[in-house]
């Protein structure tokens, strides 16, 4: 009960902060839109390549783009937390009886909401290019993005609390998110990759999310890969939340 109430208070707080600067919603969508406009057309000529999934360039590319949006969007949330650490806000909350878990959850829910809104914007923008979405596809897609958002933003908050400075946080997320992206099959389907690269990619949880998202957008909604992707993302979310919650409940030394 207290957890729910405190989570709601925190969610409102961070939503308020976010809405004060709605430009961030647009900026978050800008990068994937650039991929959509300046990169996706390259794929059109590749659709006939052996191994390229069927369904058309946009139905193959946009689902992966949304996973990328989730990854990049969530990994950047730690910057706001570091600013708050510096402003003394986190310390102020620690002295209150507020639920420590709510400090994490309220923020992460705000992040999920932001990502879902951005995903919807991106989906709408992709339609004129040739994306053909299905209702069930959109729901599964948003579910995947939400789970990635919860897991990755929790991990990002844990990293921000541990590092306490942008100078070490920024290189960390850039260093980690690039291989995660390259090994997920977002830019080009991993079916085109040599065997050894496919094997490495199997260790990347996000590659399963990309596979699931593609399946559901290309008429394979009932495929076991979809459930596998959702289950792995749910597991990632649980692990992320546990790590994040432990960080929030520990006192800063």
């Amino acid at each position: 009960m207290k957890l729910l109430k405190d989570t709601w208070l925190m969610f409102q707080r961070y939503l308020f902060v976010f809405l004060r600067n709605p430009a961030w919603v647009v900026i978050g969508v800008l990068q994937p839109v650039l991929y959509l406009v300046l990169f996706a057309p390259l794929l059109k000529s590749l659709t006939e390549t052996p191994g390229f999934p069927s369904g058309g360039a946009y139905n193959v590319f946009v689902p992966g783009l949304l996973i990328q949006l989730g990854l990049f969007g969530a990994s950047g949330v730690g910057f706001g937390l570091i600013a708050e650490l510096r402003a003394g806000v986190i310390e102020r909350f620690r002295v209150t009886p507020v639920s420590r878990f709510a400090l994490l959850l309220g923020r992460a829910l705000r992040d999920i909401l932001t990502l879902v809104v951005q995903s919807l914007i991106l989906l709408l923008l992709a339609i004129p290019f040739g994306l053909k979405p299905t209702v069930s596809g959109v729901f599964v897609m948003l579910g995947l993005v939400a789970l990635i958002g919860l897991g990755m933003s929790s991990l990002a908050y844990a990293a921000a609390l541990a590092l306490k400075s942008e100078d070490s946080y920024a290189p960390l997320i850039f260093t980690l998110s690039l291989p995660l992206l390259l090994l997920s099959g977002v830019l080009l389907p991993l079916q085109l990759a040599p065997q050894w690269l496919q094997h490495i990619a199997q260790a990347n949880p996000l590659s399963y999310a990309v596979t699931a998202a593609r399946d559901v957008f290309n008429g394979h909604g009932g495929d076991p890969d979809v459930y596998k992707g959702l289950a792995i993302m749910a597991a990632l979310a649980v692990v992320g939340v546990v790590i994040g919650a432990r960080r929030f409940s520990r006192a800063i030394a």
Partner: protein
Amino acid sequence: MIETHNLRRVFKSRKGAVEAVAGVDLDVKKGEIFGFLGPNGAGKTTTLRMLSTLLPITSGEATVAGYDLAHNSAKVRYEIGYVSQEGSSAPEIPGRTELVMQGRLYGMTKTRAVQRAAELITALELADCADRATKTYSGGQKRRLDIGIGLMHLPQLLFLDEPTTGLDPQSRARMWDEVRKLRDTGTTVFLTTHYLEEADALCDRIAIIDHGKIVALGTPDELKRQVAGDVVVVGTDSSSDRVLELLKGQTYVREATSADGIVRLYVDRGETAMPQIIRVLDSAGIPLASLSLSRPSLDDVFLHQTGRSLRDAA
């Protein structure tokens, strides 16, 4: 309100263990302004952070606002307010929103929190800026808002970490008034400072900490008297050695030194010692050239206890 016994905090680092707080005994009474004085790195902030539940204690006992700190920090949190040196508000959020949110975190209803926020905004004279984002606030307004945030839930005990650091003299005087008002309403205030004047002017009692240990504790007057007493400076035209000889034996003189024809006498109470000094010199037929009394400052206290000046140490 606060009682600690042998409170310790050890930080472990790669270079080994550092004992930041090395056995602190404190007894802060209800309704007093208690000052915690010491140079940077003396263990002031570490002690404050332990007492305000921010940092687990390594060993020792502490009771804060009636609850055991180590085992019942959740209960302690409802009874205390804490105002950190770094501030406590987000730059994009208006002060009023921050106040209401703080009240809600302590379980106030929305109506009650809005009402209490309005009270504090009036009391702390924040009406002009309460609905603006805090990044537009002046240093003094920001600090007053921080205090308001710490007071939202009517705590019995308020911790203030260096409440006037970085404020201009006017805002500082203003802050002192606010702190005194708190005492008048029965709130106990525990503050850290490295300003001697502040401790002297504001605090009912003071503890001086250095290298993690309390080196002096008492009212500002007691401390000054206990350590250095008063200083009586006797100037004479005739032999200062003779003056020294005569006065050294007096029971009220604790210590005496002479240099350059000037004799310095450390006495417990200067105002009663001076007439006696005059009488002694008079009956010995020594003409007195000058006589002056100076009161030791808290800096003398610190100097005496630690061997260095707080101004240098800080």
